[in-house]
């Protein structure tokens, strides 16, 4: 079942089309990556999902029903890219305030605060003012205030920026925990290595349009260049490498990067080396990283857009 479904969302501003007919759906419990270069329309999209702004056209379905900002807002947790907390407020009061605005009673909020503050080992900060905390510490407080009310849908815009590796790992673990508990997570970022590590699904947007949509594994398969990396115990003489199954793309110190020919199968490559009795020490298909797919796709769409103009 899909927690969130966007159907032909459009948001036009006077000068540009921030979101131009985007549709996708997010299955329950998945970690969903929303990628795109700066100014692609990600924030506008997220703001429409959180009910901060209304789409000009199209519909947002939440839990199968049309999104009702008034009620559904309490099932959503949103951590914007630009963090915001009241600087002069004490940490405990701040989190309590935001939790109550999400509809938690003071008592519930108290329990949750105890739970999360213990978990993040920040109980001692409770009476400190936000402005006394470091950026990373503030980020932890912000994360807690976003997940306090146990949202069905958690939207994190660049959740790791400004965090050291240890805290980064801490937040990442929490994200996995929440997803296991059934929370759906939308994760917006530029950091592609994290996308591969964390996300199940991604959507790539550029210039207000959806460019790509699918499971991470599937996308890497779809965009592969049919390359393989072969490491060998000893380099054979060039004559031994002649075959109609693959062509050599690059020669390494201890092997080759090869591109498989059409109609050939992976095992045909291995069979070739076995046939010549060359010892294979390492063999792997080279899949493009999401980073590479991202850059390639953004460039392609930019070029298409330029051609249209």
């Amino acid at each position, binding site marked *: 079942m899909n927690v969130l479904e966007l159907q032909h969302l459009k948001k036009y501003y006077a000068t540009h089309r921030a979101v131009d007919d985007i549709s996708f759906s997010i299955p329950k419990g998945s970690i969903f990556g929303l990628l795109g270069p700066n100014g692609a329309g990600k924030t506008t999209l997220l703001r429409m999902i959180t009910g901060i702004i209304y789409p000009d056209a199209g519909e947002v379905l939440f839990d199968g029903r049309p999104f009702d900002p008034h009620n559904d807002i309490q099932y959503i947790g949103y951590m914007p890219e630009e963090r915001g907390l009241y600087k002069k407020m004490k940490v405990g009061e701040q989190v309590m305030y935001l939790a109550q*605005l999400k509809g938690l009673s003071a008592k519930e909020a108290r329990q949750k605060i105890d739970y999360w503050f213990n978990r993040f080992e920040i109980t001692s900060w409770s009476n400190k003012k936000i402005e006394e905390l470091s950026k990373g510490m503030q980020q932890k407080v912000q994360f807690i*205030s976003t997940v306090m009310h146990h949202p069905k849908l958690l939207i994190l815009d660049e959740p790791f920026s400004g965090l050291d590796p240890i805290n980064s790992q801490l937040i990442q673990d929490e994200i996995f925990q929440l997803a296991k508990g059934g929370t759906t997570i939308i994760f917006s970022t530029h950091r592609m290595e994290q996308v591969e590590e964390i996300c199940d699904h991604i959507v790539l947007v550029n210039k207000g349009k959806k460019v790509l949509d699918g499971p991470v594994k599937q996308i890497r398969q779809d965009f592969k260049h049919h390359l393989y990396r072969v490491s060998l115990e000893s380099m054979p003489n060039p004559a031994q490498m002649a075959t109609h199954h693959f062509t050599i793309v690059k020669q390494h110190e201890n092997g080759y990067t090869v591109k498989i020919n059409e109609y050939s199968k992976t095992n045909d490559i291995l069979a070739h080396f076995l046939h010549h009795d060359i010892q294979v020490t390492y063999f792997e298909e080279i899949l493009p990283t999401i980073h590479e797919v991202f850059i390639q796709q953004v460039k392609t769409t930019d070029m298409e857009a330029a051609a249209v103009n």
Partner: protein
Amino acid sequence: MNKIWIIIKREFLTRVRKKSFIVTTLLLPILFASMIVLPSLFINSDNDEKVAVIDDSGFFAGKLPDEKGIHYNFVEAKLDTFKKSYRDRGYTGLLHIPKMDINRLPAIVYYSKGQMPFSLRGSMEKRLESVIEDKRMEMAGIDKSKLEDIRADISIENLAGEAEKKGSSTVAYIVGWISGFLIYIVLLVFGMMVMRGVMEEKTNRIAEVMVSSVKPFQLMMGKIIGIAGVGLVQFIIWTAIIIGLRLLLLPLLGADTDVSAAGQMSANASGKFKEQMEFVFNSIDWFSLLPLFLFYFLGGYLFYAALFAAVGSLVNEDPNDAQSLTFPITLPIIVAIIIMIQAVVKPTSQLAVWGSIIPFTSPVVMMARIPYGVPGTVPYWQLGLSMISLIAGFLATTWVAAKIYRTGILMYGKKVTLGEVGKWIFRKS
């Protein structure tokens, strides 16, 4: 709505708990009191005018007694030499009256370092004129004692309205002035407080977190009402101070007179003071003044606070933006205080009447008129029209402000033009 209440509570508590709130609340009445008392303390003999008089004919000798702030001192000296040395001798000026014929007055000259103060010129001319006039009357055959009999000293007692209430325009003037000025300060101080609050939320990017939990309108109204609560608490404290003065100070003064029977003079003096104080308290209809003050205080605040919130939502990081954007809002408030200064002198003039009806200026101007009496000076229709337009006014400004605010708090980077803001107002949600 529960959420708006949570916001109101936070906005209220964070401000009331501040030390600066307690200090300013208690300090402002003291500041006001000292504004009234201090000027009289500063008038000391150091600032008095010491005027050396060279009277060539000796006509004025003994006829220029010292008066408040001016001391006349007749000197026998030559004008040419004394002109150069009078300042070294501690005089602020030198008055030269040449030889004169009572019917043909010569040019009287006053030498001083800088320009002669306006008030000094007035009182000096009046003094010299009356001496000459006395002399001329005497010459016309009017006896001096008869002259004293002819002179009259009149003070008008004013009975206002059908009840012939004994009032004092002086008290009304002072109370009107203070109330009008207080409202003026409230509009600016609390308006700015709302604006700074909104700017804080926008520049700290809390606004985005907040509007993912509550509607922008709730956020704006929560802030406005919360800060109104702060103002109300201040109002209650100030009212308590007035009532406290009324209840505590007066009997205290009365008791003093009984006990200190030793000095008949001081008893008389403090008795007179008590009478004056009682007169001040009784000549104003506090039971209509205080609720009306509360109404115009809240109405005016709500009218302007929404506009200040809208402006705060338009400001980016640059504080210069704030200044240029607040100008269109502070301008009518300043106009209001200018009209108020007129209205408190002439409370029934056209300017005062319309100034107290149009909601941009009515909170300040009306408060200057009300102490003169309702319905005597301010007829019921004017009061009613003024109150209704203020309510309609703040509903309108809140509606407009909400539209601007909703878009403004999420806009970053570029500076908005007035045209764009206009579009936001008329755009459907």
